[in-house]
């Protein structure tokens, strides 16, 4: 999977650009590049459902973020970040990376998934639900509770956005 390595490398570069660039609009667009790279990675990993969803979600989240950042002028003076804080963050990230490398060594190798639960779903999807798309069968039939909880979270987030943004309209 050499192409996946190249794609992930490009995504990391895009993430670093999004993090370090001065202009907020360029930063948001670099985040969009990372998201579209993720779409391609989903296609290479045989997940077309996720690729479609990630593509359209990325477009919408770019629209929302650009709406928030366009026209914002950053103050010219440098934001002084304290050196101690910086060292703390570097140490924290390094600790995180070293522990995660240890944890990854315990996982099954890439391309060798165990599929302890998934094989059951694959075997029974056609008989029990008569749906050709197994992912759809799982999210809406076998694991409907998950989707119900997800719908609740989405509802809460929408209500939160409307509640946060509503106040000023009355004031204005």
């Amino acid at each position, binding site marked *: 999977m050499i192409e996946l390595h190249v794609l992930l490398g490009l995504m990391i570069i895009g993430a670093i650009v999004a993090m370090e660039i001065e202009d907020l609009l360029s930063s948001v667009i670099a985040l969009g590049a990372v998201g579209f790279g993720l779409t391609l990675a989903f296609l290479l990993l045989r997940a077309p459902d996720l690729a479609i969803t990630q593509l359209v979600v990325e477009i919408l989240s770019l629209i929302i973020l650009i709406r928030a950042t366009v026209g914002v002028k950053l103050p010219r003076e440098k934001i002084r970040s304290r050196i101690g804080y910086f060292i703390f963050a570097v140490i924290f990230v390094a600790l995180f990376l070293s522990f995660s490398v240890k944890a990854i060594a315990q996982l099954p190798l890439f391309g060798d998934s165990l599929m302890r639960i998934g094989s059951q779903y694959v075997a029974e999807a056609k008989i029990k639900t008569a749906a050709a*798309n197994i992912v759809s069968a799982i999210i809406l039939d076998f694991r409907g509770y998950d989707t119900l909880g997800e719908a609740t979270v*989405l509802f809460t987030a929408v209500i939160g956005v409307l509640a946060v943004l509503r106040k000023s309209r009355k004031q204005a």
Partner: protein
Amino acid sequence: MKQQQGMSLIVKRITKITVSLIFLFGMYIVLHGHLTPGGGFAGGVIIALSFIHLVLAFGKEIALQRLRESFFSAIESFGGLMFLGIALLGLSGGYFFLNVLPKGVPFTLFSSGIIVLCNIAIFLKVSAGLFSIFIALAIIRMPMDDAKEQSR
């Protein structure tokens, strides 16, 4: 500061043609969610994008006269209740989320029982929810706009 509403005439013309096509593609993605990749989530976002396309091309004042935010909130609640109702329908046959409807022949459009209905419910919920988020972000008087007016 006050420019003409929306974008240029070319964009408006093309938008009138493409919006219906995007909407149709979204409906296709939703209704074939149990046969091909896609489903309620992807199709819902695509349909929300078709409405957002309309708002962006025609300007928010013109577009929002037709599209009310409260209407979309009601649609979203209806989608959530529909999903819960389908789940409760399973109780008639035994347990929550039971697939009580007839399954039909696999690989045809009218098959797999409640999955099609669930896809439609999720599509209503996702599209209306995201579009009402967009409206709320669009009609708020953004501080950046005020700053531009003050600097003038």
